[in-house]
């Protein structure tokens, strides 16, 4: 029991509010945000370290004991994800200053950013289902603010679809919570898990679980619910795309990992087998989507989807290797998606177009950008020894263990397609004859460095897997045994 658990939510909330007051002074608010996000990252790292060393920290807000009040549960999984989110956030804040226009910075970009981080952290940390809904709304509302920032015609059009679909799924979310409350009489996740276990997930519970899955799957962009994603992720500014690509869908995945390893684990031959099918389709359709377009931003946006498939595969396997693979892949994917959106933002900025048939030979002018992209492409495709590889070993191993050979083949096949989609960008945009750029050389240092900073983590997650993997192993172990979570919340 310690107030530390809620700090990762509170700091960005306060920062976001403070940033409102001097939003007109771009330089000040920019500096403030940069400093504060670094401080927050430091704090979060420290708390994360404590959690990894000493175990889960819980906080009963307002002193109302579980299961009655809202419980914040900073367990290793949540903290790892909070840390990763903050690393990405920090890089994005530094990227924002050159990527956004002054007007956009003035109109509350930093406030929305901080509240997004706050909402995302809250969603990771909360142990209460309705509170999860509230944090979902916080992060969604912040994302609405971010997606309309700039107010271009196309942007508003896609934002509209984005808001409408999310509104629909939010309403489905509260309704589902109500159903669940009616059956088990509680909204504390640990207690829900406990009570669902007592009645062995009979009757209507599995159906309610599936509804909940669909709510998260809509946010998490799982087949067949991802339609809203690609276009709405490419219309805002690249820094916003990076935040979305890295954080938003992953919150959905995290929620699925949480609920379907903790609560709904008693009918796996229905629910989790279905996930395996959906995982396969998600990978295939996502990879196909990534090959379907010449718009470089859209290629990256589509590439979010097969990665989600990989993570869902691990959840569907529900084994030590599968879950560890999902979590590892989650960490990897958050970072690499941010990197790619940031790099592509820079590419589009220097090329003045996002159509890859209209670019060539960019590497002659911007070698650093080109090689960063190449490295990022390898990381994304899961080439060893980078971060995607570790997750892939675990997932493939988990698949083989359970005889899911077809799924393994589909997964590896989609990796090849992903690589092809990335190489299309590299070969068409960066390779080729040198030609004069319209607009001349532009300074892009402030674009490339934040991306390079993140890419270091991608490489470290692979080469230095020994520093991270043992924790992921423990996390997977804990996830497999719901009683650990339940006890840590209910028996203080």
């Amino acid at each position, binding site marked *: 029991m310690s107030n530390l658990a809620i700090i990762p939510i509170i700091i960005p909330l306060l920062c976001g509010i403070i940033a409102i007051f001097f939003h007109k002074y771009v330089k000040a608010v920019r500096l403030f945000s940069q400093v504060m996000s670094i401080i927050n990252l430091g704090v979060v790292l420290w708390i994360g370290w404590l959690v990894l060393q000493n175990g889960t920290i819980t906080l009963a807000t307002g002193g109302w004991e579980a299961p009655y009040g809202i419980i914040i549960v900073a367990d290793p999984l949540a903290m790892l994800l909070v840390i990763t989110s903050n690393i990405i956030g920090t890089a994005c804040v530094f990227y924002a200053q050159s990527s956004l226009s002054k007007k956009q910075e003035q109109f509350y970009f930093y406030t929305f950013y901080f509240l997004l981080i706050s909402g995302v952290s809250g969603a990771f940390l909360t142990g209460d289902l*309705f509170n999860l*809904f*509230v944090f979902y*709304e916080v992060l*969604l*509302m912040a994302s*609405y603010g971010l997606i*309309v920032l700039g*107010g271009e*015609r*196309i942007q*508003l*059009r*896609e*934002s*509209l*679809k984005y*808001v*409408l679909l999310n*509104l*629909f799924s*939010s*309403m*489905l979310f*509260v*309704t589902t*919570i*109500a*159903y669940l*409350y*009616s059956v088990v009489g509680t*909204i504390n996740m640990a207690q829900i898990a406990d009570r669902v276990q007592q009645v062995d997930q009979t009757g209507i519970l599995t159906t309610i679980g599936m509804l909940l899955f669909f709510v998260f799957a809509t946010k998490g962009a799982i087949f067949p619910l991802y339609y809203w994603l690609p*276009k709405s992720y490419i219309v805002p500014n690249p820094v916003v795309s990076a935040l979305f690509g890295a954080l938003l869908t992953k919150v959905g995945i995290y929620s699925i990992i949480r609920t379907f390893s903790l609560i709904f684990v008693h009918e796996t031959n229905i629910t989790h087998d279905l996930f395996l099918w959906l995982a396969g389709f998600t990978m295939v359709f996502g990879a196909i989507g990534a090959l379907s*377009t010449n*718009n470089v931003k859209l290629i990256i946006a589509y590439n979010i989807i097969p990665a989600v498939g990989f993570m869902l595969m691990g959840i569907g396997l529900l084994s030590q290797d599968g879950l560890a693979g999902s979590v590892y892949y989650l960490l990897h994917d958050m970072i690499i998606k941010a990197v790619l959106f940031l790099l592509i933002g820079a590419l589009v900025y220097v090329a003045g177009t996002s*159509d890859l048939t209209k670019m060539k030979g960019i590497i002659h002018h911007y070698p650093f950008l080109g090689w960063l992209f190449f490295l990022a492409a390898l990381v994304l495709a899961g080439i060893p020894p980078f971060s995607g590889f570790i997750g892939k070993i675990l997932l493939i191993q988990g698949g083989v263990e359970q005889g899911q050979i077809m799924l393994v083949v589909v997964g590896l096949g989609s990796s090849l397609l992903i690589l092809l989609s990335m190489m299309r960008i590299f070969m068409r945009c960066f390779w080729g004859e040198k030609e004069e750029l319209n607009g001349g050389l532009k300074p892009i240092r402030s674009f490339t460095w934040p991306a390079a900073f993140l890419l270091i983590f991608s490489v470290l997650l692979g080469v230095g897997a020994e520093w991270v993997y043992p924790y992921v192993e423990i996390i997977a172990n804990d996830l497999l045994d719901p009683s650990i979570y339940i006890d840590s919340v209910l028996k203080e």
Partner: protein
Amino acid sequence: MEIIMSVLAGILFATGVYNLLQKQLLRIVIGTALISHGAHLFILTMGKLKTGAPPILVKGVEQYTDPLPQALILTSIVISFGVTSLLLVLAYRAATLNKTDNMEELRGSEDE
């Protein structure tokens, strides 16, 4: 009674979804509003209806209705109010900028 209310909420969902599937922006927004009403009614129904006094403690009353769903609805109402307002302004802006309120004309194309 709960069954009747469930059916009513179901009707609200159905009409909401039907409106959501239309082309005109106004209808779509109305659809979302209906869905939120439906959702709130569902929450209320999921507590027991009319099984006691309003959850305001009064001496001598033993039976109260379930206060938690009410609290949840309240939070949800406020949140959906926020989202709906944003949606309305966004819809208005999107429609004027794109010069159409027909969602089917707001599909967008490959080459943008």
